[in-house]
């Protein structure tokens, strides 16, 4: 039994079967409960941990169906999971067999549970909670019969609404169904009728699954849990074969593939690989997975393995080119980029793309190599019209400068505690701030200023790119900055 602080006093948040048997109910004050049952054991409730446990359970129920949603307040009595098992029954030998499996699985994990299968989520919810059976199966199109004897609270209504309905003498769903709809809507709003219609299957209900449902998936379950690397390798090959056959048939290629291993203890091991372009070649994906399989820990063994293509792109079947050198990218290169990206992270394998901007720090940006198209804007490929350094400091660093007269390039500067004597200088190259991108009034307040860039060469022949921020004005101290290095 767990308790939570509510309105300044300890209140029962959830009870187990033993507590329920002695008539303890959530919402009771802990002091009252102690008076009823001396020696009552209680724990403080931890809603975050409970939420996490429910999410983990939702993940691990992915072995039954890809569509799982967690529902309700995790700490209350009504915490639950939705599983959309349409089309999944045949994998287990019928829906009843699936339920049996699910029940055995939850029993093994030690979760007290009740379950119901129905055509609509609303009916399943009500029957599971108020039906009184541990496992119920509502026959197709039989919701009304199943729901009629159940209390109106089974329609997922607000407590105030339920109380209002009780005051009107409407206690069961059957009674509610018997009364005229218009006065009901006028009295309680459309919510009651919507829930009723949804439960009976007359109105659609959308529930967002816990995780996006993959486009294609392949599933294998094992009689004995596998924990050995060889076994996992073999399973992976088999899954990839199935998945890639599905992908090829749909003319799709995977961009992101997730391998999920459902462990015997109800936890989940996951391994994801991404590719730079759509792939439906099992060998390519297998090599990417092999790299990372060390991070896939089966612990005590994996009972079910599912391989899902989370993200796919259109991939038309390849036509062998007559001329091998017609600008096609090298598949070897794609494979290399995928491997590098999967091990180091896609944001660490980059291309440096130039941009049509004047300010030097914005004239280039790095983009992940996997995403960038190999072809770039030709207009930017001609090289700059002025010398640009090979290395650019991420942020310009202040330098102390000596110049004989204003508007003259420096003859001496000090950068990082070291003096440099300038032998030759080229400049200035004036680069105006991008007033069209920002508030132009900043030009007049001095927040945005033009920069005068100089190329300097010191006695040893090292070349620097420095700039003066702003123009010389009698009343103003000008600042100089080091910005880059020429080779």
């Amino acid at each position, binding site marked *: 039994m767990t308790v939570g602080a509510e309105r300044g006093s300890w209140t029962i948040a959830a009870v187990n079967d033993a507590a329920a048997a002695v008539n303890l109910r959530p919402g009771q004050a802990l002091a009252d409960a102690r008076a009823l049952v001396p020696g009552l054991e209680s724990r403080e409730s931890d809603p975050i941990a409970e939420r996490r446990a429910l999410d983990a359970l939702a993940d691990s129920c992915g072995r039954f169906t890809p569509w799982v949603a967690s529902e309700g307040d995790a700490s209350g009595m009504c915490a639950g999971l939705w599983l959309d098992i349409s089309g999944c029954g045949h994998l287990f030998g019928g829906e009843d067999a699936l339920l049996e499996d699910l029940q055995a699985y939850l029993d093994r994990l030690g979760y007290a549970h009740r379950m119901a299968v129905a055509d609509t989520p609303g009916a399943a919810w009500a029957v599971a909670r108020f039906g009184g059976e541990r496992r119920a199966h509502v026959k197709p199109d039989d919701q009304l019969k199943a729901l009629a004897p159940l209390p109106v609270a089974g329609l997922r209504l607000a407590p105030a609404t339920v109380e209002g309905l009780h005051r009107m003498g409407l206690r069961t769903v059957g009674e509610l169904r018997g009364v005229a709809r218009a006065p009901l809507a006028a009295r309680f709003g459309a919510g009651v009728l919507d829930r009723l219609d949804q439960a009976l299957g007359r109105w659609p209900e959308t529930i967002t699954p816990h995780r996006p449902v993959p486009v294609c998936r392949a599933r294998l379950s094992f009689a004995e849990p596998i924990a050995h690397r060889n076994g996992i390798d073999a399973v992976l090959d088999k899954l990839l074969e199935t998945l890639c056959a599905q992908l090829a048939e749909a003319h799709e290629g995977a961009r992101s593939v997730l391998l999920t291993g459902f462990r015997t203890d109800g936890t989940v091991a996951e391994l994801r690989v991404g590719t730079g372009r759509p792939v439906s070649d099992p060998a390519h994906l297998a090599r990417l997975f092999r790299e990372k399989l060390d991070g896939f820990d089966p612990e005590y063994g994996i009972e079910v393995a599912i391989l899902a293509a989370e993200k796919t792109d259109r991939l038309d079947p390849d036509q062998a080119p007559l001329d091998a050198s017609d600008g096609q990218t090298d598949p070897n290169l794609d494979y290399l980029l995928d491997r590098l990206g999967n091990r180091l992270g896609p944001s660490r394998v980059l291309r440096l793309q130039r941009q049509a901007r004047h300010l030097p720090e914005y004239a280039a940006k790095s983009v992940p190599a996997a995403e960038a198209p190999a072809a770039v804007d*030709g207009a930017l*490929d*001609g090289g*700059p019209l*002025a010398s640009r350094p090979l290395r650019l400091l991420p942020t310009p660093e202040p330098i102390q400068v000596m110049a004989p007269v204003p508007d003259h390039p420096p003859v001496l500067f000090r950068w990082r505690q070291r003096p440099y004597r300038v032998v030759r200088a080229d400049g200035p190259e004036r680069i105006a701030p991008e007033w069209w991108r920002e508030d132009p009034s900043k030009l007049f307040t001095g927040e945005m200023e033009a920069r005068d860039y100089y190329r300097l060469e010191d006695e040893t022949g090292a070349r620097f790119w420095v700039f003066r921020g702003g123009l010389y004005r009698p009343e103003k101290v000008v600042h100089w900055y080091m910005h880059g290095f020429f080779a």
Partner: protein
Amino acid sequence: MTMPDSAGRQQSASPDALAALQHQIDRLERPTLAKAKPGDVLTLGVPEIDGHLPWGGLAPASLHAISGAESLTPAIGFAAALLGRATRASGAKRCVLWCRRGHDLYAPGLSSFGLTAANLIIVNAVEERDLLWAMEEGLRSGAMDAVLGEPQVPSPTALRRLQLAAETGGSTALLLDGVMPDGETGRSIGAGMTHWRVGTIAAPVAALDPWPGPSRWRLELLRCRGGTTGSWPVDWHETIGGEEIAHREQIIKIREEHANDNTGTPSRRGQGIETGSGTAFGAPGRLRLAQPVCDGSAAALADTGGAAERRRAASG
């Protein structure tokens, strides 16, 4: 009767026989290297230096180390120039890989070396282990024309692995080996086929023209397997607007030509060279052996006078 015949054959066959013998020696020394074709050799584009190297350039499918003399920047420039030449040499739409830790490489500067978003992939590794792994993968895959890496303290084992990976994939491996001041030995000395050191050369004081001119490097070949050491002053002629710049006036002319182009980049008109893949981009710069400085003070003075005159004309 047979004597002249055999003598004649001897004469005509001797260069072939020599080449065959050389090939045999190569095969014995480095089995994978023997497979390389002469076209695979990465040349520097400077006939004097290429002629000095036993392979007529950098030996293919092997490791080459580059150190900086005072700072690493000229060494990075030299390495970038080599990478640029490597992508152009292959002709096909292939890439070069640059594995490094920092992220201060600047795309507009790189494009002058012929390295663009289309042919340069940068790996930004956090750990030394990852960096060496990425280099090895790049070399072994054979998908890269050249792989440049900047490991901090490469162990002899790591260097040996890189060499083997380069042989397996048939790509050129370049190693940026940090700064190596005079009198010190580089960390990776002994590894690879060649070891270069690149330093800057101070500008001759006589030249008072404010334009710094092309970057001038002192290129030292510290070690060369099967060859001798050497030292050359070279100029890096960058390109602006797709044209190689030799005089200050050229820059002014190009800027005027493109004055109306508001993107700050040249129009297609200014671009001459096409690469093998057909992508038009500005001709990258090139290395040239530095010309001896015109020591006549009269010439330098005349030049200064010219510059002063130009300034006067511009202001007037």
